């Protein structure tokens, strides 16, 4: 081949590479947002992650919004969960996102630069804080600015799944709940089955990643401590309250209620474990019940949630903010986008319709009581134990990287302590240091 031909080839390859590479180029975010006149035809793009009931619930509300606003057309685009995270992470800095973005509240502040703040005529911060429970609205509040509204209360700690068939067979009555951790542990021990010194059915599974980390941070709160400094810029994890929390969890292992080598995130994850009846009780949020009901209807029928005892006066717990809606700062029709978000999230009737369609707990305080609460419990009996707890939820905080803290820092160290491979001193010191490194 001639040198000239090679040059042509090289030029072609270089042009192709440059062309592809330039697609990474980003427009300056937030410089093209705008609003449109009241009757001007508008097409709003709405991005959500794929979840059958979530998507259908939103589409149903969208149909109502389109009927009330004939000039608006909603275009829903869905992504599987992993793709959605990556799409948001790349599209927002590039300014190519949709007008309305479904957001998990805890993520919101990391995208705040590219999101539109809630206009004052939609809701002020104080109004939103009184309308929504603290934990869900916390995720949408960044430096005292509101960037969206939650649709659900995402809760993982406060009550435990109880298999009533197994409890009845063991002669354990959990209907009155437990006043103390000693009472709880006695029942959990009675619900534990062992054979040849091997736990074949654990009494209480709390050693999956989410369960263990939510337990740890919630028990710190209940003990009167805090893990995040007031300014939200540093962690204090090596504290007496943290030691008390670890000691309680360690005592359950020592009592033989659970073997963390056999029951953890990799082997016997709590959802599988509970519905396959290898766990009598298990710590996981109420979202798991509809997820498994179709495949394990008999276990689902025998399932109820019972509130856990507390270490302090009140059942304080740590919670992430739930799924909700935000508006892109680049949207050419932010006013219409906010109208839609307001219609879905702030209207109590519409918000309750979405919670009913999706089997999620309400984020609006007004839907957590009265007739709406009764209707939700009638539709989802396993919600009953959760409603009294919602007011005690504390938002986990706008962490630099929540997943990193949860799954790479807190969980491995806590599991290490329970498995006996790490001392409490080393684990707490390492957690504090590694967690503070995430602020770098």
């Amino acid at each position, binding site marked *: *081949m*001639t040198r*000239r*031909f090679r040059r*042509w*080839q090289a030029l*072609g*390859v270089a042009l*192709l*590479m440059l062309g*592809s*590479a*330039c697609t*990474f*180029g*980003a*427009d*300056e*975010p937030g410089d093209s947002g705008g609003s449109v006149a009241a009757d001007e035809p508008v097409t709003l793009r709405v991005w959500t992650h794929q979840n059958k009931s979530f998507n259908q619930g939103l589409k149903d509300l969208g149909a109502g919004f389109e009927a009330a606003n004939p000039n608006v057309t909603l275009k829903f685009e869905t992504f599987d969960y992993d793709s959605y995270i*990556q799409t948001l*992470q*790349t599209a927002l*800095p*590039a300014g190519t996102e949709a007008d309305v973005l479904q957001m998990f509240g805890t993520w919101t502040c*990391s*995208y705040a*630069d*590219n999101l539109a703040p809630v206009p004052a005529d939609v809701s002020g911060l104080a109004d939103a804080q009184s309308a929504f429970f603290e934990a869900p609205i916390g995720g949408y509040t960044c430096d005292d600015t509101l960037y969206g509204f939650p649709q659900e209360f995402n809760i993982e700690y406060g009550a435990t799944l109880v298999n009533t068939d197994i409890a009845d067979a063991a002669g354990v009555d959990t209907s009155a709940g437990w006043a103390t951790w000693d009472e709880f542990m006695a029942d959990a021990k009675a619900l534990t089955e062992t*054979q*040849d010194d*091997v*736990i*074949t059915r654990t009494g209480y599974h709390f050693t999956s990643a989410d369960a263990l980390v939510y337990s740890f941070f919630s028990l710190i709160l209940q003990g009167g401590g805090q893990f995040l400094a007031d300014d939200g810029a540093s962690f204090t994890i090596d504290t007496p309250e943290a030691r008390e929390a670890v000691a309680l969890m360690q005592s359950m292992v020592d009592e033989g209620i659970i073997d963390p*080598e*056999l029951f*953890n*995130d*990799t*082997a*016997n994850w709590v959802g599988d474990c509970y519905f396959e009846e*290898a766990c009598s009780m298990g710590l996981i949020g109420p979202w798991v019940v509809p997820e498994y009901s179709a495949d394990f209807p008999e276990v689902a029928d025998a399932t109820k949630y019972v509130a856990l005892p507390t270490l302090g006066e009140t059942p304080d717990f740590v919670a992430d903010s739930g799924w909700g809606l935000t508006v892109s700062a680049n949207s050419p029709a932010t006013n219409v986008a906010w109208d839609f978000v307001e219609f879905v999230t702030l209207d109590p009737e519409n918000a309750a319709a979405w919670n009913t369609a999706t089997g999620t707990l309400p984020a609006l305080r007004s839907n957590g009581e009265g007739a709406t609460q009764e209707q939700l419990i009638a539709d989802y009996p396993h919600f009953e134990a959760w409603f009294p707890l919602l007011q005690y939820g504390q938002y986990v905080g706008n962490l630099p*990287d929540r*997943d*990193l803290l949860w799954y*790479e*820092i807190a969980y*491995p160290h806590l*599991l*290490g302590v329970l*498995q*006996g*491979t790490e001392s409490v001193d080393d684990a707490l010191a390492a957690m504090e*240091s*590694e967690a503070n*490194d995430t602020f*770098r």
Partner: protein
Amino acid sequence: MASATIEQPRRKRRWFGGREGAQRRFVSIVLSPALAYMAVFLVLPIGWAFVLAFFDFSPRRTGSPFLGLGLDNPFVGLEHFARMFDFSKTAPLEVRQFHTALKVTLLFAFIVVPLNLVITLPLASMVESVRGRWKVLYRTVFFLPVLTSAVGVAIIWGFVLHPQRGLLNGLISRATGKVTAIAWTTDPDLVFLGVPIALVAIIVAYLWQDIGYNLVIFIAALQAIPDSVKDAARVDGASAWQTFRYITLPLLKPTILLASVLTMISAFQVFDLFQVMTNGGPDDQTRALSLDIYESAFRYQRMGWAAAVSVVLFLLVFTISIVQSRFLRANWEY
């Protein structure tokens, strides 16, 4: 004798005209799709990874309009590589995880490669010695796992090794008459000769799936050795072992080189088994470099750091492959 240079009339090169031009057009048309594909999906990502390794890049942050580099994704030069040499206890988490991942990957590769060869070479020789249809049957049976999805293999082995419902513990329980629940892949205390059992479990699954590939390569190489060479050895009184040791094995040297280099490269790249069987656990005992890169890049969006680690992985594979080639190179052919 005087020499004279005869000046040839210079042929005018015609790029698009004439027979030569037609050939060039044909070559261009045929090669362009493949070159474009390679440029976009191979050269560009590799080049992009090398560029990113010098930036503190995260797609979460807003960079400059030029490729998203700069501004909040600043140029950091060799900083990522320098941090890799921080062996102190206070080194950042990602650095310590990189050290662990490097150790796990090297351990995995240097166990898997010799084990693979030690198993496949004699097995190939045995399969090759079988006559008739049985040879085809054996070849098929041993090659079948290669065709299986790696994720499927990981799930099945996960089931075999499950502490409570696993086949292995079930067999041990039957044999001992006692309920046995060994947490093969989740107990950090289980170690064999300094190698975590969770890693051993992945090695077993990997070998189960991979040996068929090298087996076919060795069978093909064995078939290529002329019978006359072996016959000559036998005439000279060599036993079967001596024939294998002094005739077959040396003649297989180029194939052993090929198999060991390919296995080494593939061992450094294994991802699915690590992610599905253990997800790096217990206690990071099976956190391989590929998993570390994936977690850093796509879970925690530390693209710059992940790119630097992938550059290290590339250099590692490159260097080891070169060293292997030097050691196992044969200077003759038959």
